[in-house]
C-alpha cells in the first residue's frame, strides 16, 4: 500500500480546522512565541541593569546612530523584498520571486558586513569588548544573538533560492508555504531589530 506525503502528514497544504492554517505555519508561530520569550529575557535583563544605573549616562557610549539607522533601513528593506518574493511566487512568477529572495539574502549579508566590520571590529580595535562594561556586555550579547539569527535566515533563504528551488517544479504550493514560513521568521528578526535599535543606539 502506498501513501502520499499528505496522508502521512495531514494539513501540510490545507488549513487545519482548529488553527485555520497549515501545520508548518502553526509550528513556526509556536517557535516564534518561544523566540519572544528568549529575547524577552534579555530585554528584561537590560531593563533591570538600566534601572539599577549600571549603564553610563546617555551619550557616554559610542555607538554610531548613523550606522544603526543604515542597518535599520537595510533590514526593513529586506523585509519588503521577502514579502514581495512570496507574492511573486503566489502570482506564478518564479523568476521575480527568486530575484527578491536573492535581494533579501544580499541585504542580510550587507547588514552582517556592516555590523562586523564597521561596529564590532572597530570597537574591538578600540579595546571595547564584552567585559569592558555592563552596557557593552549586554550590547554584544543581544546584538550578537540577533546576528546569529540573521546568519540562520541567510542559510535558509539561500537554501530555497538554490538547492531547495527544485520543489517549485514538483510541489509549488508547498514551496510557497515554505517561503511564507521563511518570511515569518525573517520578519520576526526584523521586528527584534526594530526594538534593539532605539534601546541601544538612541536611549
Amino acid at each position, binding site marked *: 500500500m502506498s501513501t502520499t506525503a499528505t496522508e502521512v502528514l495531514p494539513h501540510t497544504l490545507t488549513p487545519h480546522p482548529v488553527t485555520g492554517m497549515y501545520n508548518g505555519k502553526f509550528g513556526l508561530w509556536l517557535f516564534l512565541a518561544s523566540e519572544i520569550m528568549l529575547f524577552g529575557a534579555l530585554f528584561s535583563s537590560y531593563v533591570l541593569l538600566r534601572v539599577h544605573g549600571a549603564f553610563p549616562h546617555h551619550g557616554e557610549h559610542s555607538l554610531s546612530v548613523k550606522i544603526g539607522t543604515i542597518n535599520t533601513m537595510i533590514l526593513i528593506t529586506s523585509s*519588503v523584498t521577502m*514579502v514581495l518574493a512570496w507574492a511573486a511566487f503566489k502570482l506564478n512568477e518564479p523568476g521575480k520571486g527568486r530575484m527578491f529572495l536573492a535581494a533579501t539574502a544580499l541585504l542580510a549579508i550587507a547588514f552582517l558586513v556592516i555590523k562586523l566590520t564597521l561596529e564590532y571590529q572597530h570597537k574591538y580595535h578600540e579595546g571595547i569588548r564584552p567585559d569592558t562594561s555592563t552596557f557593552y556586555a549586554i550590547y554584544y550579547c543581544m546584538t550578537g544573538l540577533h546576528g546569529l539569527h540573521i546568519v540562520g535566515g541567510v542559510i535558509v533563504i539561500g537554501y530555497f533560492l538554490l538547492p531547495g528551488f527544485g520543489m517549485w517544479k514538483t510541489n509549488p504550493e508547498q514551496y510557497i508555504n515554505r517561503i511564507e514560513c521563511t518570511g*515569518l521568521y525573517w520578519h520576526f528578526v*526584523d521586528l527584534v531589530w526594530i526594538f534593539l535599535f*532605539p534601546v541601544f543606539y538612541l536611549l
Partner: protein
Amino acid sequence: MASSAEEVKRSIKTYMFVFGALAVLTVVTVAAASLKIGVAAGIALALLIASVKGTLVASYFMHLIHERTVLYWILGLCAVFFVAMILLPVMQTSETAHLMDPIYQATGETPPTHAPSPAHVAPAAGAHGGH
C-alpha cells in the same frame, strides 16, 4: 491572507505603503531622540514608535490581521509572560539589590546592610582545622 491573484496584487500596494511608513518612522525615531523632552518621555516616545513599527510588520508582513483567533490567544499569552518578565525584576529590585554587588560597585553606591558578606557566606578554609 491574500489567496487570489487580485488579492495578492492589492496586497503588494499595501506592502509598499507599509515600507514607506516604516522608513518614515525610522527617521522620526532618530529625530525624536534628539528632542529635549526628558529621559522618561524620550524613552516612552522611542518605544511607542518602535511598537507602532512592530505592529505594522506583524500585522501586514506577517499577515497577522488575517489569522484566526486561536493564534491571537497564543500570542496574547506570550505577551502577558513577556510583560511579566520585563516588569517583575524591576519590582523586585529593592529586595534583591544585595545580589547585584557588581552594579553597586559600578555606580559607587553602598549595598544594603543586610547583604551577606563573603565571610558569612564562605568561612575561611582551614579555620576549623582543615586537613
